[in-house]
Each structure stands twice: as C-alpha cells, then as structure tokens.
C-alpha cells in the first residue's frame, strides 16, 4: 500500500496560447500615449487627471483619448489605436461588467504590440486578473485603484488618477520580462468585506 493518493485536479486551465508581455520603452518622453476610456461613470475624470500628471511630471506631450462609450463590450478600434500609439492605458474598470472588458481591451492592445496597463478598482482586481489569464495573458499589468471610484467631491476622484501615474509609468517602462514575472505571481488583496477562507 502506498502512502500517497493520486487525485485529479478539478480546475479547467484555459486552453489558450500564452500571450507574452509586450516589450516596453525605457521612458515615455516623446512617445505617443493612448488613454482608452471605457465610458464607465467617472473614468473620464480619472483619465483626465492621469493625462495632466503625465504631461506635467513625465514629459509626455502626445496624449490621445479614445472613448468606446459602452463599458461592457470590447473597443471596436484596437487596430487603429495600435497604429497610432506607442503605449496605452485602459480603464477604469470599477464594476463586474466594465472590469473584464477593460482588461480584454488591454490584452488586445498588448497582442497588437502596444505596451499597455489596465486600471481597475480594488474590488475588481482579482476578477480582472482571472479574465486576463483566461484569454492567455498571465502577466498583464493591472494598476489597482481605490474602490469606490465615485465620490461626491470630484477632486477626490481626480486624485485617484494623479496617484496612479507613477505606477502606470513604472509598468509601461519596466522591462517586459520583469513586469510579466511580477504580474504572473501577483496576488491582489481580497475585496472589501471578504472574509479570508484560510
């Protein structure tokens, strides 16, 4: 009698081809930056503030906004975006419908060769991560924003975009392999009110 029992693993790994993290530039100076606004409420406020901070603190001069209007579907203009930009930011996912699609847009931009980060609010980061992995991108960088995004005071919403800038820049300018490794191993905190199981 053996001391071990062999059991089948009950999960179903996604059967997709692994998507590598797209090679990153060393700096954003002089590069074209695309901000993909998912159309979810307050995303424009966060992205406007992020754009302003990139201009002021990181020497970015060429920023273009892309707006897909409806947050719960993929952006129909990924190819045009990819042709017109050097790096991209996709967000802000802050509900169960917008977060998966902002991640899928980011993955599609990466597949099109554009270094991209997704902006997702804290509660939905684990969901964003599993969706990214489900379509084959284990190392997609997701910048975690505080949740909820919406507040009565608009300057506090904008602050979330300002605060995210440093991390956005780091993840767009760090070596792809490093980013990939970091995010493949990344464990996001549980959503607010979730009780840890173990």
């Amino acid at each position, binding site marked *: 009698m053996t001391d*071990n*029992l062999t059991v089948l693993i009950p999960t179903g790994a996604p*059967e*997709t081809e692994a998507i590598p993290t797209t090679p990153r530039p060393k700096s954003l100076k002089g590069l074209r930056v695309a901000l993909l606004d998912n159309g979810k409420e307050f995303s424009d406020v966060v992205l406007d503030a992020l754009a302003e901070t990139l201009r002021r603190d990181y020497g970015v001069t060429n920023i273009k906004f892309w707006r897909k209007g409806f947050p719960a579907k993929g952006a129909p203009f990924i190819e045009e975006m990819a042709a017109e930009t050097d790096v991209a930011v996709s967000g802000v996912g802050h509900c*169960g419908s917008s977060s998966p699609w902002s991640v899928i847009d980011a993955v599609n931009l990466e597949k099109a060769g554009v270094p991209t980060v997704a902006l997702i609010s804290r509660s939905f980061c*684990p*969901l964003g991560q*599993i969706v990214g992995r489900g379509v084959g991108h284990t190392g997609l960088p997701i910048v975690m924003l505080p949740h909820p995004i919406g507040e009565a005071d608009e300057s506090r919403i904008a602050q979330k975009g300002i605060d995210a800038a440093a991390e956005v820049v780091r993840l767009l300018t760090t070596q792809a392999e490093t980013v990939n490794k970091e995010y493949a191993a990344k464990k996001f905190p549980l959503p607010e009110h979730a*009780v840890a199981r173990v």
Partner: protein
Amino acid sequence: MLDTVQKTKINTTDLPNSLEAVNDYFYEQGWTDGLPIIPPTKERVDRMLTGMNWRSPDAVIGLIPPGMGLATLRTIATNAVMAGCIPAYLPVVVAAIEAVLEKKYGLAHRQTTTHAGAPLLIVNGPIIKEIGLNYGNGVFGPGWRANATIGRALRLTLVNVGGAIPAETDFCQHGHPGKYTYCIAEHQAANPWEPLHVERGFKAEESVVTVINAEAPHSMTENVQTDPIEIMRTFADSMATYGGNNLYSQGNPVVVLGPEHAQHIAAAGWRKLDIQMALFEMARRPWGIAKNRGKSKGPFFPVWIDKNDENAMVPIINEPKDLVVMVAGGAGGKSMWCPTAGAQSLSVSKVIERGA
C-alpha cells in the same frame, strides 16, 4: 453526435492517502464549497465517466467564464465525483452545464454579479424516477442524493472550471443557500396540466433539465381560499414587490405550485395558461412608485407602459408564458415563489442525453 474533442493533459497531484489530508488540501486550494468532498481519484473519475460512455472523456462541453476554463467531460466528471454523484447523474450535470452556457442565460455576468441568484435546476421526464430525484415533500430541502449532488456538481464546476471564486471573483453580495445545490424535479403525477418540458416543446418521454438563475424560494401560504382567483390574489401580492428585480427587469421567474393549490385551480376548470395570464395581470405595481426605486429598468422593460401615467401598472413578466409554472412539493396549503435577477438572465431547457 459529433463531439469536439480536445486531448488535454490529465492534471493530477499526489497527496497523503487520507480523506482528511485530501480535504484539507482541496479546501486550501479553494476547490470545495466548504463541505467535505470525495477525493477524485482516477478510478473514481473513470467510473463516473461510464455514466456517459457514449461520449469521449475529452469531449469539449464549453468554456466557462469568467476564467474561460475548459470544461471537458472529464473535468465535469471530476467535479461530479467530488460532489458525491453516482455515474447515472452525470448526464443531468452535463446537460445543466450546456444549458447555463447558452447565451440567453448570460453566465459571464451571473458568475460575477452582486445579485444573489443561483442556477435552479428543474428536471422533467422519465429520468426523475430512474435516478430517484425528489419532487415531493421537502423538494427544496436535504435528504435526496440525486438532488443534493447534481446541484452541487454544477456549483463545483462553475467555481473550479469557471473560476467564479466566492468573494474573489464571484461578487454576490450575500448569495443564498441554493448556491450549494439547487436542484428539484417536477411532481408530474400531481400536475393536472402538461409538465414543464412538454409546455416547452419537448416530448413527454424525453428527459429535460431547465435552468433558471433564481433567488431563494419564498413560501406563499394560502390555507383558506380555494377559488383560483383568490389564490392568485395571494400569489400576486407575494410576487410583485418593490424589492424584487422582476418588477423592473421582468424575465422568467418561477412559481412552484403545491399539489393542493394545483388541484383547486384545475378543479375550477383553469388551464396552466390561465394561471400565467392571471398572474401577468394581477402581479403588478404602479409605475408612479416603481419608477424611482429598485433598479434600472430593462433590458426588456415593457414599452407599452405609459411613463407619463403614474397609475400605469407594471407587470413582473413581459407576457404570460414567461412565467415558469410547475408543480412540486407535498401536501399542504403552500406554493413557492422563486424570483430571478430579471430578463438579463433567461431560462434554458436542454434534453438530458441518454445512452444508446
């Protein structure tokens, strides 16, 4: 039938040979519902697969969101072993998974929504008696292996293959006990009308599973009245509520008639369609109160409600046939009401495959 077959590596792990050690490990991995599981050894999974030996173990049943995990017959059988199923239950589990994967069920958002709903399985046809599904007293409760483990196998598959991990990627605010298991059968002998699957266009001799993403069942007591109109009044008042999604987003909510209510109604000469029409008319609330509360309206909010008329009465279904009416349960003056999330998730019926 022609299957898409995808040869996948059978992933296994070696664990200390004790029930406790396997359960500790599976629990830590998040692969259980919190209750003990049966260790899915290769022998047990192979035995489970005999329940559908006409299909390849590598047959692709689908990709389950949000993680888009690949559900093959083998991965489903693995979860069915863990849930405590016997091989004869496997075709019901597989049909249920095929049903929730149909577009109109909207599985991607049902897996991650804040709403409490869980897939309610309603089984019809000869398989009910063959595998011993409960349709009588205590139909929603514990005690029958088929009901308990078929619903559980679906839940484990949705979590393990789909990655709908409670509190991590499944954002249900509260959930409800039906997320452990939620499987009933129709009491066809106590149904004075056509059974649910026949109403939905299947043959009486076919076995069919219907899935509906439903909230917990709510008891509707009417011990006093036997006139169908009065029974309908009691039901209608229980069903059209300002906190219920169906008032704002309609859909396919469910009435599970107790056998006595069904008898009273049929004795007065009513058809099943008459029940559906009566509740379509009577289970309503005024637009003036509904308009600024509850939730957003749609996706199929009735266009014929005059939004300038505060007194326009809003129904909880778009048309009579949208109400799922079935018979189950034991003796007594109760029926059950299962509200749903609304029309963003609709019911789906699938034939349960049987071997040659």
